């Protein structure tokens, strides 16, 4: 509810701005799978380290049309998160400033619906950076693959407690994990998982 109001307010404020087109309803047949690597898991303090997006058109994952951004080293980059995503301070040298990166990101995704693994987490971090710089949250429609998976599993196997680890779900869907804990790799894997879910992988599995 609050979100809807905020989006309406955003749209009005941006009505004459450069990003007004983001608020238009999307009519194409593409989606964008996104993923980000951050310095932590707390949406209030974690900062972006890298950000990736890959387009999905029909039943194709357009890996050739993808965006992979490395950002400048954030202050909160610590050993714990480096262990996960493997991006050290030096690796981020020459990375883009967060403002420029978000600008490119917005241009890339446009008003296409977003697909992500635990999308809310990525969105809240992105929005936290976006609002002070651009003055709005991402207005795009979103599909959370983790939710979709749980929903489909409930429908097909009501008694099974869904295991919600990324690798586990990818395995269950028969999707190869392309590059775990790199933003682009996870985005591509997420996109593939989405395609499998779309085509009723769980339902098909039951019938076979």
């Amino acid at each position: 509810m609050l979100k809807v109001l905020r989006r309406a307010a955003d749209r009005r404020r941006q009505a004459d701005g450069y990003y007004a087109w983001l608020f238009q309803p999307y009519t194409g047949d593409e989606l964008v799978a996104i993923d980000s690597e951050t310095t932590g898991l707390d949406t209030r303090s974690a900062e972006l380290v890298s950000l990736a997006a890959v387009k999905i058109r029909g039943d194709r994952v357009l890996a050739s049309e993808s965006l992979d951004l490395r950002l400048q080293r954030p202050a909160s980059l610590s050993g714990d998160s480096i262990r996960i995503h493997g991006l050290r301070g030096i690796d981020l040298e020459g990375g883009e400033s967060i403002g420029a990166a978000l600008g490119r990101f917005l241009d890339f995704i446009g008003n296409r619906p977003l697909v992500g693994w635990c999308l809310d987490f990525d969105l809240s971090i992105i929005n936290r950076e976006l609002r002070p710089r651009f003055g709005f949250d991402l207005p795009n429609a979103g599909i959370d693959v983790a939710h979709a998976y749980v929903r489909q599993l409930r429908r097909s196997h009501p008694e099974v407690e869904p295991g919600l680890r990324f690798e586990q779900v990818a395995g269950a869907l028969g999707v190869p994990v392309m590059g775990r804990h790199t933003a682009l790799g996870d985005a591509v894997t997420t996109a593939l998982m989405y395609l499998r879910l779309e085509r009723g992988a769980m339902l098909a599995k039951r019938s076979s």
Partner: protein
Amino acid sequence: MVDVDLSQPPFTFLDDEGRARVRSGIDLAYFDRDEIILEAGQPGEFVFIIHKGEVAELDTTLPGARERIGHYTHGDLFGAISILNGKSRYRFRAEQESLCYLLPKALFLQLCDDYPAFAEFFRQTLAHKARLLTEQRAEGGVTMAGFMLARVSECMRQPLCVGPASTIAEAVATLHDSHADSLLVNGEQGAGMVTKTDLLNALVLEGREQDSPVQAVAHFELVTVTPDQYLFEVLVVMTRHKVERVVVMEQGAPCGVVELTDVLSYFSSRSYVVSLQVAQADSLEALAAASRRTPELVRALMAQGVKLRFAMGLLAALNGRIMNKAWGFLIDERYHGDSCLMVMGSEGRGEQILKTDQDNGLILADDLDWPDCAEQMQRLTDTLIELGYPPCPGNIMVSNPEWVGSVTQWRGRIARWAAGRDGDSLMKLAILLDSHAVAGNPTLLEQVREELFERCSRDEILLSYFARPALRFSTPLTLFGSLKKPQHGIDIKKGGIFPIVHGVRAMALERGIRVTSTLERLDALAEDGRLEARFAEDLGEALSLFTQLRLEQQLARLDGDGSKGGKPDRVVVQELSSLERDLLREALHIVKDFKQRLSHRFHLEYS
């Protein structure tokens, strides 16, 4: 950027930069089970690299189980040929849920341009594919199975029997008369075996008299088999008992003998047997019997996947020996040194596998006096017809006085033909150019051919006229380079064999190449530098393919398969397997290319 395994060919032909281009250019796609990834006839837009899953390649024109012609799985690549050809020839269907990387057409073509080795990987040569086909054919091995399933009754020979009272001398005489190695003696307690070695031992080592009874040296413990046992069982029995012949018994009485050599030759390609039969033939009837077995030999060679080139060589040698033998029987020995029987046309080139017709001629020494020559030649022709060589419809035979002459007469004819340059003369020159001596004195033919090269090889205008017929028949390809598919089939003799043979012949005449077989001429031309070695090889392969297809039709006709009907030169494209069709198309493209070179070389553009 996707991490895809690029450590397999053809990607190993790229450098790091190329591989990075592939990585950044590819997409991913999922295909459900039984989903059609690429439909036959659809233009190829992507090269597919399978990351996971299985894909089947189907030829939709073939029925049922035979339609599956390819199977691809993890790491395999398909669709590249579809891009190079413009459209997909076959249907690709996912056998399982499959995840594929898609390499877009534009990027693929760019890579092909930038990395020749990469492109080469996809353009396999005709020879390579032909080898595949040969292997496939050899694998079929239907006839091979026939050998294994042969029974004793098909291979045994009549036993040679003598009475119990016969003497050793009589036994030796009998063996000698019938060219045998062993005989059976009918004793009171049944049959006994006597071999040549037994007789030798009895006479020399034991010092028996020639008129002592043969029964005393016979072995009555026989190794026997029954007529309906398998031949390979006989081989096992022989090995076990360390004997070289077994007796075939039917209802207690001997009805045949099987010798080790019979079994072995039956298992081998039988070429040895036929040539032996020809060599041993002491009468025209025996020669005719041997001659009748050649189609069977051809079939066995084909089933074993013997390269056509060698099969042709073998058959040419065999046919030559048969004619030589016939000549020896019919012609008085005193004429042998002063006359030369030559075969011409396909026989002269050694490319006549089955006997189609006889093209032959006779050259006589200038000072020879041979009164009843015409009569004898008529007999020779008739005999050859009996031996299975049908008469030539163009009457190019020794029975026709036009094809008999002294060296001087022949030289005069060549001069006349070379000056005339009309269709008939040119054809005769071409026929003579392919001539090959089979009997008599070959130096006479050499003299005549010397004259032929002398007169023709530097005459540009004559060469141009000579080469022109090679372009007479159009290549059965459509405007877009695919095979024409008329209902009655395409004529591969006119469309494929003739242009190659005649074009190569014209070039051989130009370069003064003396050998007659087209394949040897091609080798010689490549050595001479007239043709690139690669192109010569392709032409040879194409010719072998056409000959093989034609041969299959001829064999089918010999089998009395009336349904194929019609002429053996007609190949109905629709009846071929997809691989054969593919080969045929490529071979015809080579012919087309060759024709262009010919018309360039001999200035046939405006004629």
